[in-house]
């Protein structure tokens, strides 16, 4: 890869694997919490889990945790840190086109999601088993659109927040409620009505429903898929406008 974009992407992929925050939040945290909570409710189908195996429920849900960790924690901190320290100015002065850094981050984010998801499924397979895919194309579309939406949100946050510390604070503040209410916490049916209403408004809940429902055969997830598609389009346009940096 000898183009400026190619060189930048190669370096950014290497740096991603050297970043303790990425390794912790994107690769270790989802796997660890999936193992803990996936084993907490047994394997017998239960009504609050739409009558499916609770362990499978969480295996299908936790791909979204990877997506959220990438978009809400990894990318905003990384980008804000680069802006704060003048790394982006140095790239710009060296002739890297303005779009190349944002595109590299988009690709790095998607690679992080793909790799961490593979790791998660690789760990889940011998422990809980991988649930059968009922509608492959819907699941693939949900993962793809959800990843694009949250990676774009990550780029957007990284270009808006003034420092790495601010990005970390805001990112964690967005991540944990989304994680607990929208993906890795109790199932929606176990939540009180008010909390369930709030959970339904979270973007991550829509991504989770768009992936989990067609995966486990608990519903088509069409409304959620449309909502995620709209979110992906809107966040990508906004991120592209902001990422002119």
């Amino acid at each position: 890869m000898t183009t400026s974009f190619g060189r930048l992407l190669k370096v950014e992929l290497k740096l991603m694997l050297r970043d303790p925050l990425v390794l912790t939040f994107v690769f270790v945290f989802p796997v660890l919490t999936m193992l803990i909570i996936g084993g907490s409710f047994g394997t017998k189908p239960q009504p609050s889990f739409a009558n499916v195996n609770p362990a499978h429920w969480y295996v299908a849900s936790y791909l979204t945790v990877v997506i959220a960790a990438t978009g809400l924690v990894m990318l905003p901190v990384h980008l804000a840190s680069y802006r704060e320290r003048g790394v982006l100015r140095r790239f710009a002065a060296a002739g890297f086109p303005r779009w190349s850094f944002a595109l590299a981050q988009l690709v790095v984010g998607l690679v992080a999601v793909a790799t961490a998801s593979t790791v998660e499924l690789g760990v889940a397979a011998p422990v809980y088993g991988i649930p059968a895919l009922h509608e492959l194309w819907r699941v693939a579309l949900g993962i793809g659109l959800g990843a694009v939406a949250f990676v774009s949100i990550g780029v957007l946050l990284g270009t808006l927040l003034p420092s790495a510390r601010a990005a970390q604070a805001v990112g964690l503040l967005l991540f944990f409620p989304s994680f607990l209410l929208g993906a890795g916490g109790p199932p929606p049916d176990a939540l009180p009505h008010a909390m369930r209403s709030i959970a339904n408004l979270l973007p991550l809940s829509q991504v989770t429903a768009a992936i989990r429902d067609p995966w486990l055969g608990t519903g088509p997830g069409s409304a959620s898929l449309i909502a995620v598609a709209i979110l992906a389009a809107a966040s990508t346009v906004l991120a592209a406008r902001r990422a002119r940096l």
Partner: protein
Amino acid sequence: MCSRRPTAIVAAMLTNNVVTVRGLQKCYGRRKVVDGVDLDVLEGEVVGLIGANGAGKTTTVECIQGLRRPDAGMLRVLGLDPARDAERLRPLIGSQLQDSALPDRLRVAEAVELFSPRRTGDGEALLEQFGLGERRRSAFASLSGGERQRLFLVLALLGRPRLVILDELTQGLDPSVRRNVWAAVSQLRNEGTTVLLVTHELGDAEALCDRVVAMRAGRILDSGPPAELVDRHARRATIRFGLQDVAASDALLEELRDVAGVDLVERDGQRATVYGDRSAIAHVGAALVRNCSVPADLSVQIPTLEDALLDLLDGPEAPLPSDNHDQRLIGAMR
């Protein structure tokens, strides 16, 4: 964008200017940081921008690099508009920026590979030249301040750029490395590379620059070769010595008052102080030798560029020298 002195602008563009700036203005909010700067950098020149903090030096070079869009004025760098032709221009410019960094975990060799516009293979040679050969696998975060500066210089010189912009080049470098960097800049000049240096270190400017441009509050106060600026603005040379033969002292001091270049002779007990221009140093020395009274405690204080800059910054604003420069360019056209 600019309607000022069109003949001069055309003249400047037809000469071998690498950088041509006319009427550059830039505001941050309501604060005007660059206010009508005119600047020419000829091919092969080493030009220094000097001035206090907030003088507008860095903003001026950021506009030249295309990193900031000017509010008004005309810029041409290597015949291109830095704002419009940024992507074509930037590979031709090597930049060492003030207040910027690299990713903490990026290794030295990876940085060289990342910033090499072409596979010229000069990265390895530059790393060796600047004493970073042994640090190829070191992460940026583990480098000392001096090593980071040297790495930035290596990155600025990759791919043999036609214009090199160095902002606070020797900040944080120890004296031996500073000499190494000076030698590198001299080598660039010998190879015909044009260098624009932004610095607080007036020793750098005096040692390296063919011409310096002094700025204050976004405007150019004066420009010229360092020695000329010193002659124009620095305090006088000062010669001090003890009077050995008290009886002959009055006659000696009277003689010194008439020596060429001497402005003032003062006596304070057994000490004499002579003020004058640089030529006075030689004439006073000769007079002391003629009178067989060469003092053992003779000291000479030569005015420096720092003295000149302090005088400029303290004094009233000088007329812009660019008018003279434009006249020269128009003359060259005729």
